[in-house]
């Protein structure tokens, strides 16, 4: 049989993109602002969420989707804070995808949520490639990880809307150069503000909460 070449030009992640678009439309219908939180394991995503839930209190109805490779540990912590939460276990998978989030949305009381946080699997690489249906992307980098990370993981820092430097209470013990980190992030992504904070001491939390409020309003 004759051999022929067929042009295709279809994004490999197009199936995920379509599902993410469905999620986005559904969340928007419910008037929910959705924020995808990404970082390495142990950078402080859950601690930041707990501090954020405490700080916003009754002023904003929050929901959380917790993504982890395994376990229910993080969801239990969030549930104790009195917020609706769904745990997704990826069973070894290194990132959340739009199908998993679609399933999680089934289990959340969407009419009672204004602000939905999706805590992605701890990983600075893969989550950047998979749209979930979120409105905003947040990357955390903790002080012990070092200021040189942006150029090792450019795709993460290049596409997010805000970068949080967490665990700033450890600054005195680490060689983290904040000015250098800012310079590197700005080189990749001049749109994204860099907010240093410590969820533990509360330092810098105000700026993050301000950013959140603007994000919710700006939608």
């Amino acid at each position, binding site marked *: *049989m*004759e*051999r*022929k*070449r*067929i*042009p*295709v*030009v*279809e*994004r*490999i*992640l*197009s*199936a*995920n993109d379509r599902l993410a678009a469905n999620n986005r439309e559904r969340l928007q219908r419910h008037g929910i602002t959705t924020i995808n939180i990404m970082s390495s394991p142990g950078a402080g995503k859950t601690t930041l969420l707990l501090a954020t839930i405490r700080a916003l209190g009754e002023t904003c109805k929050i929901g959380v989707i917790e993504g982890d490779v395994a376990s229910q540990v993080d969801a239990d912590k969030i549930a104790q804070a009195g917020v609706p939460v769904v745990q997704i276990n990826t069973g*070894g*998978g*290194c*990132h959340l*995808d739009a199908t998993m989030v679609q399933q999680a949305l089934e289990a959340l009381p969407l009419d009672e949520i204004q602000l939905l946080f999706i805590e992605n699997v701890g990983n600075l*690489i*893969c989550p*950047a*490639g998979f749209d979930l249906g979120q409105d905003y992307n947040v990357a955390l980098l903790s002080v012990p990880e070092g200021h040189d990370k942006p*150029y*090792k993981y*450019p*795709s993460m820092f*290049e596409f997010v809307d805000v970068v949080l430097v967490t665990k700033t209470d450890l600054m005195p013990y680490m060689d983290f150069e904040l000015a250098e980190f800012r*310079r*590197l992030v*700005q*080189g*990749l*992504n*001049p749109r994204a503000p860099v907010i240093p904070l410590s969820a533990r001491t509360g330092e810098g939390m105000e700026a993050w909460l301000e950013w959140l409020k603007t994000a919710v309003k700006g939608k």
Partner: protein
Amino acid sequence: MHELPVTEGILRIAIEHAQKAGASRITDIHLVIGDLAGFVDDSIQFYFDMLTPGTLAEGAKLHFHRVATRLRCWECGHEFSPPERDWTCPQCGATGGEVLAGKEFYVESIEIE
């Protein structure tokens, strides 16, 4: 792990287009992958060999067309391809730039019989 769902995506797209064209088999699949896309050729090939037996794409050859990162300097507008992990503009020394290329990740074409 990461490349498994991605390879399934490649296969789904290739088979869909091959079926539409009435192909009896796919001989070649051309992929375009930007250096910033974060996918490893060998890993995609590994899963591809695992997933294809018994499908239209059995025995098909994967071609990886890599696209280098290309930036436009925020400061002086100079366009350049930076070496890995150093996004300094060679013309003015500023850091970084708008990404013009390097994030591509698509099936460009397939060859069928």
